[in-house]
């Protein structure tokens, strides 16, 4: 078991999810190895985000199992799964709009901080020391993602590209052991996409964590992913390294277009 968990960080086995009579996912299996960038691609409605929602506990699966570091995490509450080290970003950016960028990142440190409401109310001493300690960690992320300018800005007032960056930063602040990115480059121009791809590769290199990436931009996916899974109508139709996917006939007919 131990040896297996070393090779596969996350293992998904026969995942099945349906809403009423509609099968969103049927029998999806895959695994992410240590230090791997895995991309899930597929047409709209193929079930990519559903996979993510199952892993993070937002959806409850009917059948199938999910193992993280050899431990079964199927259908745990989302905040439990986060505390095990799986973190996600959101397709439609779900930030705390009333807080500043810095506070959003600090909110990401929540599970690593210990002080409770009494120490927090008294502030001086334990709470302040902890705030400062975690502020230093957050500042490293601010530097990594080049967010110095927007640190004290309220997130609701930031433009789209920068909000995406805060979303990524907040996920990083959790110090995840596995990072799930749901369309981190949706709606960005070429330059912003390049920035984001650079950040993802930086994070991958610096933290050495596996990354699960959902993305539409085939160019980006082919460039940065180690392995690709293709979903269509809730079923896995192919997996392999980018070169294999490019020439797979099923993938070409389903997604890449003739």
């Amino acid at each position, binding site marked *: 078991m131990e040896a297996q968990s070393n090779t596969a960080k996350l293992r998904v086995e026969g995942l099945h999810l349906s809403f009423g009579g509609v099968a969103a996912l049927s029998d999806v299996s895959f695994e992410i190895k240590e230090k791997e960038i895995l991309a899930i691609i597929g047409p709209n409605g193929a079930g990519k985000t559903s996979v993510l929602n199952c892993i*993070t506990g*937002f959806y409850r699966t009917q059948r199938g199992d999910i193992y993280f570091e050899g431990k079964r995490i199927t259908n745990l*509450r*989302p*905040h439990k799964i*986060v*505390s095990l080290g799986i*973190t*996600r970003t*959101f397709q439609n950016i*779900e*930030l*705390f*709009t*009333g*807080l500043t960028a810095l*506070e959003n990142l*600090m*909110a*990401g*440190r*929540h*599970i690593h*901080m210990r*002080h*409770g*409401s009494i*120490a*927090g*109310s*008294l*502030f001086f001493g334990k*709470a*302040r020391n*902890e*705030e*400062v300690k975690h*502020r*230093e960690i957050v500042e490293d992320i601010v530097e990594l993602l080049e967010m110095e300018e927007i640190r*004290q800005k309220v997130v609701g007032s930031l433009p789209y590209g920068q909000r995406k960056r805060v979303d990524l930063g*907040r996920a990083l602040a*959790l110090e995840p052991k596995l990072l799930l990115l749901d369309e981190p480059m949706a709606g960005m121009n070429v330059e912003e996409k390049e920035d984001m791809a650079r950040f993802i590769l930086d994070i991958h290199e610096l933290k050495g964590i596996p990354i699960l990436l959902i993305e539409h931009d085939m160019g980006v996916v082919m460039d940065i992913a180690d392995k690709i899974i293709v979903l269509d109508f809730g079923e896995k139709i192919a997996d392999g390294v980018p070169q294999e996917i490019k020439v797979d006939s099923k993938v070409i007919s389903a997604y890449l277009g003739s």
Partner: protein
Amino acid sequence: MYRPCGTFDETYIQDIAIIRTPMHWSSLIAGIILLFSLPFLVSGKYLSLLNLIGISIISVHGLSILTGYTGQISLGQAAFMAVGAYTTGLLAVYLKFPFWLALPCSGVITGITGIIFGLPSLRIKGFYLAMATLAAQFIIPWLIVNVRPDLTGGTDTLVVPTAHIGSFAFNSQERIFYLVVPMAILVTFLVRSLVRTRIGRAFTAIRDNDLAAEAMGISLFRYKLLAFFICSFYAGIAGSLWAYWMRAINIDYFLLSDSIWYLGMVIVGGMGSVPGAVFGTVFIRTLDLLVKNIAPWLGTVVPSLAGVAAAALGPFVFGLIILVFLIFEPRGLAHRWEVIKSYFRLWPFSY
């Protein structure tokens, strides 16, 4: 974040400090000295107003944490204050609890009551939650009046003994002022600290985006109930102080309309702002007294309005104020205050 020119931070401790310049410190100390000398300057009903404001501030801080920061609307704040007041009353009258023990006990018992009525918040939000907390406002007074009227006095007044510390008795408006106002300052400090640390961020995270909050590892169950506990705890403290202030409690002080007044103070002050809770309370309570003074005068000027003015002017002005704020300054007095401060920072050369 704006700060006076030439103020730079070298450490993160400096960066997160609220009181940062000598000017801040001196105005804070001067303000507190002025506040504590007020009993020598004013008297009678104005001192009574100050005590009422102090008690209300404590309660509104609690409601501000729940509604302003955590985003859970509550229409039961007055009922929770009633729990605090009657707990103090019963403990002090029948079990002879001293003041310093009855006060925290009332807070904790009210806090637990708050958790019970907060349970629906785990399933429902917004408008529907407001309806569920409304239940507290009906159930609690009913229980107080009907379950043991022999103990609580039912609809009659329950007389509460005077608060003592040693041989010092808080038996006049002047003396109780020195109990209520330090408590209000203390609670303001505690709440201001809480909302800028881990727990406060968790509350705001739930308000802004409960989905993402859960994805950050924040347990909605735990923190929603914690918000209800803290809100009700401060309501209980406020209720307890109310009991020692009036030395006689009656369920008529804790009606649904009072709950709505407290909510109004949060809105007028500015949702999710600690200074806002203070501004809103001072503003609404002072306005209320002003209107009560104007009403008889209006009656003499327009005799046909005499009866109507006395009864209806208060609620009318209150409703009008809430409307005006919702339309013209939804971020409340706290935001207005920030605007004024940043204007005078560059004044008179604001270009």
